[in-house]
């Protein structure tokens, strides 16, 4: 009989593209783990008490073509209009060579955070370029490798100033001329920390003795360019610090904040080649004095050397960060915005200082000519000097102006009922100016852009604030100006790194699954990319539709009653969820429920976020099996009783175990009046099998860049939405500039944009749509099977630490390598570096337990690759045994010398106790697919002792090499 049409339509085709092992592979794996069927394995693994009795109430899956059709229909409900609203978001042209070779290149976007520097030199260099660019333009000494957005960067600057400042004053001053969303986020962040925020006019309202720091916007949101030298001087006179929120393009023509005394500078790098994306993702920046370096939040790339003395890049001063300092971290930030920072830095390389200045001056020239034309027509812009933004008073007629502009195809900013503003940018043209003149009813037939351009000699930048200092003088900003050079540079950088396009990245808890090409296509569509976050809601109906669909799907998947997509990283989701808990307690008069219980095995962002949300962290012990010690929990819950605000718990645990006591744990906390926060980082083991919202949790964050396929980008972007049960729904984040972004009773915004990094939400929706209810469940099942398979294959060689009931692990497995240190002097670092010789990125090292490796294959890896990884681990175990047996010396063996570079092997005299072929080709299969690390083992201590965080001179490279 012929197959039916229904058979031939194959709606579940995508499942087989996303899930690596096929049916036959699964049978093999099930046999290896001793389970008769997938059902049996899942029954043995996932506690019965939390198992769903039914499938997810989501539609069945579809293929890529159908998904793209549906996505197109959603996108078509957005209306792309030229947006000149400004407020920190501007039109920009992503250079096509960077779009194609970075943003759309899996070699760049599937990479992880560069914790293993030897296999990350490419993106580390791109980040160093970003840091150098920011430091140069802001005139400050040290810049980090990106923060999440301008508003949260300003909040980070506020707490940085409080940490390092010498003023004893308690309040923080904010210039009213800051972007409104920045002010709103600052208020949200300051409140739980007890910091009074004073918003006002720097001339009239700033009392330097009353504040520990002040934030200014330069240029202001209304376009004015303030002279901040005097107010900053006065602040310093009272030992207060000055923070300047600024614009990178403006800084090519305006004096740098570091030149007039700013202590810290923050801003967004969006307009350097990254689309607006309805609010994100974009890289934000922070720059400050070198003296404050240890207090800088976020990732910092620094220069060090490898064991051969080669210059090598690495993440520096990690002891500032949450994964080490936990509740004493400088910030809770983990995932940043690396991919976008890479793009912004490359944009600067592409245009160079002269190209950027040209773009800046052209934007300014257009703004000036526009303003001049207005004057001819009888309207008077508010300011005589400005950079790109012109504010025009129009008493009572602002709405009329906005409508006229829209009729010309342009969104302008409605400041209030009596004023509008227009911001020019890289994409603005003469046509833009003429269209705006029509919108402003400038009725002078002889007026033309050309005529005014010929007549207008000077510009409208304030004389005393014109930039005179050079910037971006490093050769990297002039070496890649032809497309051929840039293309090859991008290829050279990408070739240095291991990303998912080369090999499995078995990082436990990172869920490095497939980021399908079909999921990535829509984010570049203009209908998604070119929408301004504060465009009129009518123009963003497609985004509204997408947000609704994705929110409902996540509610169904998690069992929660409401979702907010605003937080733009897991850490931000944790923060928002904890703020919601705090607000809930306070709404019931419980002002003292300030204790947050956190297991010692928790991810570092947990305690860091709790502190930021105004909680006091109390650590709960874990038992010998790595589970929450229920007795200790009971004791501490009782001890803190009426002060108990919340428990944060990860489920399955950070040890990869479905703790059987989760129901009891939630019960204990609830009995004492606390709320339960379940960290959703490990959701990949739960989707379709259990729902946190149904087994006792009150709120969770999800990591869309883990479970739901947003690529890791080398360390961002991320999206960290929160799901809450109904009683917490009134306390979700909201946004003053978009009433439908959250409840009126909400906690305020936690991100600059109403829907956070909205531009990448299509990726997760596409994944859910293509997989459908059954596919999502199958993915979780495969993730669990693959982890148990690895446990079964490696158990004879390495102790498996922690397993749940029936000796099963969840979606990840921890191997204990500590005994090998005693036995053979081989550390977990040695194993991680030796894996590089085998062509792999190491699993997660020393989290949650020092001296261990945590392996998460995900459902996307095929059996062949999983076996290749197991064989590498087994071969390494045999190498370790040879060291223990004395066959190789403890100080000269393939492990302690790993990774081996081509240079290491090509010496004339090979002086090691093992063959070169053992070093480079420990298994024969590598000959066809060898990855050569560009540097040998990086000296981490040297890098922290001699901190260099911007591109060194060419001489510096030469000296280091000698």
């Amino acid at each position, binding site marked *: 009989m012929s197959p039916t049409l229904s058979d031939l339509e194959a709606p579940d085709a995508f499942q087989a593209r996303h899930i690596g092992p096929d049916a036959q592979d699964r049978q093999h794996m099930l046999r290896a783990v001793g389970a008769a069927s997938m059902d049996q394995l899942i029954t043995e693994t996932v506690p019965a008490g939390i198992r769903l009795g039914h499938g997810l109430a989501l539609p069945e899956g579809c293929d890529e073509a159908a998904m793209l059709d549906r996505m197109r229909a959603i996108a078509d409900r957005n209306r792309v209009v030229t947006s000149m609203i400004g407020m920190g978001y501007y039109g920009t042209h992503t250079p096509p060579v960077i779009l194609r070779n970075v943003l759309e290149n899996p070699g760049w976007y599937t990479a992880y955070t560069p914790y293993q520097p030897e296999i990350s030199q490419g993106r580390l260099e791109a980040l160093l370029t970003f840091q150098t660019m920011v430091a140069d333009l802001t005139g400050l000494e040290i810049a980090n490798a990106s923060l999440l957005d301008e508003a949260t960067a300003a909040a980070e600057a506020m707490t940085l100033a409080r940490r390092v400042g010498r003023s004893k004053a308690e309040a923080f001053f904010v210039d009213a001329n800051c972007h409104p969303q920045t002010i709103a986020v600052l208020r949200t962040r300051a409140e739980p920390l007890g910091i009074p925020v004073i918003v006002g006019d720097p001339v009239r309202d700033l009392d330097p003795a009353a504040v520990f720091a002040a934030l200014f916007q330069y240029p202001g949101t209304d376009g004015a360019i303030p002279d901040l030298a005097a107010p900053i001087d006065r602040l310093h006179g009272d030992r207060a610090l000055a923070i300047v929120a600024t614009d990178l393009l403006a800084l090519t023509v305006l004096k740098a904040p570091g030149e007039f005394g700013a202590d810290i500078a923050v801003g967004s790098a969006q307009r350097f080649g990254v689309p607006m994306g309805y609010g994100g993702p974009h890289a934000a920046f922070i720059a400050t004095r070198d003296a404050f370096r240890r207090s800088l939040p976020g990732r910092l790339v620094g220069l060090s050397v490898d064991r051969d003395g080669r210059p090598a890049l690495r993440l520096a001063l990690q002891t500032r960060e949450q994964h080490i300092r936990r509740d004493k971290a400088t910030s809770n930030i983990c995932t940043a915005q690396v991919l976008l920072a890479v793009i912004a830095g490359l944009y600067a390389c592409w245009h160079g200082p002269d190209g950027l200045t040209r773009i800046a001056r052209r934007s300014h020239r257009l703004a000036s000519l526009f303003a001049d034309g207005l004057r001819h027509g009888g309207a008077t812009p508010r300011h005589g000097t400005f950079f790109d933004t012109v504010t025009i008073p129009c008493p009572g007629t602002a709405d009329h102006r906005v409508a006229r502009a829209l009729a010309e195809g342009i969104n302008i900013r409605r400041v209030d009922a009596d004023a509008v503003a227009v911001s020019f940018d890289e994409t603005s043209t003469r046509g833009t100016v003429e269209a705006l003149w029509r919108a402003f009813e400038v009725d002078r037939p002889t007026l033309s852009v050309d005529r005014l351009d010929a007549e207008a000699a000077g510009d409208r930048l304030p004389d005393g604030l014109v930039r005179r200092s050079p910037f971006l003088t490093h050769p990297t900003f002039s070496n890649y100006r032809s497309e051929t050079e840039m293309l090859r540079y991008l290829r050279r950088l990408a070739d240095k790194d291991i990303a998912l396009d080369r090999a499995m990245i078995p990082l436990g808890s990172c869920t490095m699954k497939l980021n399908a090409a079909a999921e990535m296509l829509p984010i570049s569509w203009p209908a998604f990319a070119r929408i301004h976050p504060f465009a009129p809601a009518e123009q963003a109906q497609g985004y509204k539709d997408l947000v609704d669909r994705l929110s409902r799907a996540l509610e169904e998947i998690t069992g929660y009653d409401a979702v907010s997509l605003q937080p733009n990283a897991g850490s931000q989701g944790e923060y928002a969820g904890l703020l919601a808990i705090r607000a809930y307690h306070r709404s019931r008069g419980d002002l003292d429920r300030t204790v947050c219980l956190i297991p010692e095995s928790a991810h570092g962002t947990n305690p860091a976020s709790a502190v930021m949300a105004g909680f006091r962290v109390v650590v709960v012990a874990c038992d010998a099996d790595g589970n929450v010690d229920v007795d200790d929990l009971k004791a501490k819950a009782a001890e803190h009783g009426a002060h108990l605000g919340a428990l944060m718990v990860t489920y399955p645990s950070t040890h990869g175990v479905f703790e059987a006591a989760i129901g009891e744990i939630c019960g204990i906390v609830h009995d004492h009046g606390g709320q339960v926060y379940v960290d959703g980082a490990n959701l990949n083991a739960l989707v379709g099998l259990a729902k946190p919202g149904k087994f006792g949790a009150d709120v969770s964050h999800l990591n869309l860049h883990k479970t739901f396929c947003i690529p890791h980008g080398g360390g961002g972007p991320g999206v960290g939405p929160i799901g809450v049960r109904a009683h917490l729904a009134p306390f979700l984040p909201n946004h003053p500039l978009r009433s439908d972004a959250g409840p009126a009773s909400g906690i305020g915004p936690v991100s600059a944009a109403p829907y956070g990094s909205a531009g990448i939400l299509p990726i997760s929706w596409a994944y859910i749509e293509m997989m459908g209810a059954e596919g999502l469940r199958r993915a979780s099942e495969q993730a669990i099977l693959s982890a148990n398979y690895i446990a079964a294959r490696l158990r004879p060689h390495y102790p498996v630490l922690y397993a749940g009931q029936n000796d099963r692990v969840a979606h990840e497995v921890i191997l204990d390598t500590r005994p090998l240190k005693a036995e053979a002097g081989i550390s977990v670092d040695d194993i991680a570096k030796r894996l590089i010789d085998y062509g792999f990125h190491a699993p997660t090292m020393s989290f949650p337990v020092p001296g261990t490796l945590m392996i998460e294959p995900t459902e996307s890896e095929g059996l062949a690759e999983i076996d290749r990884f197991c064989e590498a681990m087994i071969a390494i175990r045999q190498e370790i045994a040879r060291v223990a047996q004395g066959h190789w010396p403890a100080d000269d063996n393939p492990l302690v010398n790993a990774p081996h570079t081509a240079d290491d092997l090509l010496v004339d005299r090979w002086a090691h106790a093992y063959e070169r072929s053992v070093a480079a080709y420990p298994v024969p299969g590598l000959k066809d697919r060898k990855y050569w690390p560009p540097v040998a083992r990086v000296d*981490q*201590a040297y890098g922290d002792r001699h901190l260099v965080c911007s591109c060194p001179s060419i001489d510096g490279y030469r000296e280091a090499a000698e």
Partner: protein
Amino acid sequence: MTIRKFTEDHEWIDVVDGVGTVGITNHAQEQLGDVVFVELPEVGATIAKGASVGVVESVKAASDIYTPVSGEVVAVNEALVEDPAQVNADPEAGAWFYRIRLSKPDELDGLLAAEAYQALLG
């Protein structure tokens, strides 16, 4: 003759004429790995027993220094700021952190003797 005392947080203290010299033990520096940064208390500061008065950081860990005794800080070892690696090289002599004039000498009685500290390390 000074008798060195120890804390459970792996600090040591030698007291001569009412002034104690404080550092971290060899065990501590081994656990930390290569030390990259040391934060010392301010000279002249008055500190109370158990307070966190400084930080010693390696590449992979950061440890607070809790003062074993109360008193006034009379000297700090600036050389450690320049060359933190000294903490690894000579933790129990040259890489002392600070000197403190004890305000409550009785506090020494509560500290561990050498044998007791060794027993702690197991």
